[in-house]
């Protein structure tokens, strides 16, 4: 001990020694958790508190927030998502003061306030893959506090369907002599499968209540509008079919849920089964059930799971990744990699798009971060393998020049106005103001304009790959921006010229009768229809039911 090349191991041994009186075997009693955290963590530590966009180590988060700021202070929190009030409490109570993260949706307002009050120093806002990458480079946690479904007496962990970030966090922490503490829902004699071996963990606590999981990917078909149906038809016929998109990722909004629900009806009627949408990097969206049942889908790999989809996933093991125990296996790091490198298309919605095609969900007074969209919604310039969709997009971009690479399709689908008449197309993104207000180096742009290939609105599809100048690009965007001020300031002649060249295509240009865009086209019009389509296997959360 104390040898100059093994200081980290020695430090770890010291911490385990302090922790030992509080554990029986590997188990910490719930009542002792605060003392245990104060024993295992030291001031100034870099701590990863597992917060995913779904699964939350909520008991450990609340316990950390309840630790004494005299014992624990100046912590540097590294975590992908700040979802729970306790995630912010640790800063408000003076336990932590530095943060590197990816996404803070529900806590975005509180986070912005703390930054303005200079009570929190944000290192950077990352995409998921960047943050995971930095866990192994310069943001390796000293201690990680994670969530698992179950532990056995030896400390092996079973993660259940919501694997999410856990393996990446534990691997980085455990193999650099950090401390790994898990909260589990139950202790079992024998685990259904071992997802994290005991050699990588130090202690676990059975939480007083199961960890919280947010049903983030459930979209009630009842809320899909006729306009969204129309845009879904346009995307399917004007992009999916044209490029033969087989490998893709969808965003989480109603626009893409509408596309999923039109596959067994509208896409089927166009003869597209087997020709589009076979392989997905996607969470188990309930709205994908009808397409799976209709035979559209060959495989789905997921970042996490979705509440209520457990039995359905287990019963469709040809489609989903499942363990030998039969239950789902997800993995955010691998699925993000799949989305970045192995998919030919990302399609999702956004709040604002500017004249260069930059898009952002940042709005004033909120630091929301990015999550996975920028990884999904960017062209991977390191990609080398070809596919028809990727090659065609690359050739369209190259124009008369010789294409030496393909191009991922990155599609933004937005109605020109959001509710309360907020225009989706703007001259200047709120992100620039947010950058100034928060003292950031760069505006929080979610998807960069030079990665965007298509914009779909109710007015038409703009194919930005075919634009040959910044001016054309601007007019292509204005040309689908409807009655927003940006859209009304279009150069009508130039827009008609772009339409003649197929850069802009209206619904009638691709043979879509707007009157056919009714909710009758949806393969499911309610959550109940989804349950029926699943043969009763999908068990939706109670708040989504009306029976």
């Amino acid at each position, binding site marked *: 001990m104390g040898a100059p090349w093994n200081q980290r191991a020695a430090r770890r041994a010291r911490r385990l020694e302090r922790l030992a009186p509080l554990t029986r075997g590997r188990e910490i009693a719930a009542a002792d958790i605060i003392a245990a955290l104060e024993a295992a963590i030291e001031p100034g530590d870099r701590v990863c508190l597992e917060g995913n966009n779904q699964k939350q180590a909520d008991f450990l988060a609340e316990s950390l927030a309840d630790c004494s700021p005299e014992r624990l202070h100046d912590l540097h929190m590294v975590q992908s998502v700040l979802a729970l009030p306790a995630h912010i409490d640790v800063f408000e109570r003076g336990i932590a003061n530095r943060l590197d993260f990816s996404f803070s949706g529900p806590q975005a307002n509180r986070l912005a306030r703390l930054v303005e009050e200079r009570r929190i120093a944000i290192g950077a806002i990352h995409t998921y893959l960047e943050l995971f990458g930095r866990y192994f480079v310069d943001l390796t946690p000293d201690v990680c506090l994670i969530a698992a479904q179950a532990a056995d007496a030896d400390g092996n962990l079973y993660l259940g369907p919501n694997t999410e970030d856990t393996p990446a966090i534990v691997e980085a922490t455990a193999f650099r002599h950090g401390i790994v503490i898990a909260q589990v829902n139950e202790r079992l004699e024998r685990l259904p499968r071992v997802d994290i071996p005991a050699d990588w963990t130090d202690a676990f606590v059975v939480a007083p209540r199961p960890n919280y999981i947010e049903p983030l990917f459930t979209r009630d078909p009842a809320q899909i509008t*006729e306009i969204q149906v129309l845009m879904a038809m346009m995307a399917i016929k004007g992009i999916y079919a044209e490029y033969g998109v087989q490998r893709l990722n969808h965003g989480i909004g109603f626009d893409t849920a509408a596309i999923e629900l039109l596959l067994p009806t509208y896409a089927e009627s166009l003869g597209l089964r087997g020709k589009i949408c076979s392989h997905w990097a996607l969470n188990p969206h309930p709205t994908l059930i009808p397409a799976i049942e209709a035979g559209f889908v060959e495989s789905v790999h997921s970042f996490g799971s979705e509440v209520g989809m457990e039995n359905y996933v287990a019963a469709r093991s040809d489609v989903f990744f499942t363990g030998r125990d039969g239950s789902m296996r997800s993995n955010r790091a691998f699925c993000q990699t799949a989305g970045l490198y192995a998919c030919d298309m990302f399609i999702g919605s956004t709040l604002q798009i500017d004249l260069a095609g930059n898009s952002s969900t940042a709005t004033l007074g909120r630091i929301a971060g990015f999550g996975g969209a920028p990884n999904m919604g960017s062209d991977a310039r390191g990609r080398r393998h070809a596919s028809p969709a990727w090659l065609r997009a690359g050739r369209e971009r190259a124009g008369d020049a010789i294409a030496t690479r393909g191009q991922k399709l990155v599609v933004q689908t937005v109605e020109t106005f959001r509710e*309360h008449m907020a225009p989706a197309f703007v001259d200047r993104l709120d992100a620039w103001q947010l950058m100034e207000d928060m003292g950031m180096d760069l505006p929080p742009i979610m998807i960069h304009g030079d990665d965007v290939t298509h914009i779909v609105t109710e007015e038409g599809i703009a194919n930005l790959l075919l634009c040959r100048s910044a001016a054309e690009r601007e007019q292509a965007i204005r040309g689908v921006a409807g009655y927003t001020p940006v859209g009304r300031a279009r150069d009508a002649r130039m827009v008609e010229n772009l339409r003649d060249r197929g850069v802009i295509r209206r619904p009638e240009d691709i043979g879509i009768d707007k*009157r056919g865009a009714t909710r009758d086209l949806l393969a499911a019009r309610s959550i109940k229809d989804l349950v029926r389509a699943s043969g009763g296997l999908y068990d939706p959360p109670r708040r989504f039911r009306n029976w």
Partner: protein
Amino acid sequence: MERFTLSLPSTPCARADAAAALCGVVSSGNLEILVDRGSMADRCDIEVNTSAHGFRDTWEAVLADAVARHAAGGLALAINDAGATPAVVSLRLDQALEALEDRA
């Protein structure tokens, strides 16, 4: 509520004399359009009642495009709007006016 009326030139509707229809429902983000016989064969009279303030020029642009797309001369449209977006307004106008054209 913001209220205004417009009279826009439009191709005469063959069925203007028999026009009487209601399209849509007044609910959040939606609107109803009442179609009646208007005063002049080559103009469409439009009355707008909207809960969204300050969008008159947007309405005028949406309505002008709609009566240019369809034969709406000789018709009077009355609109009760509870904050519909231009996309929804255009769709309802198409539905209301195409119904008359189909039967022509």
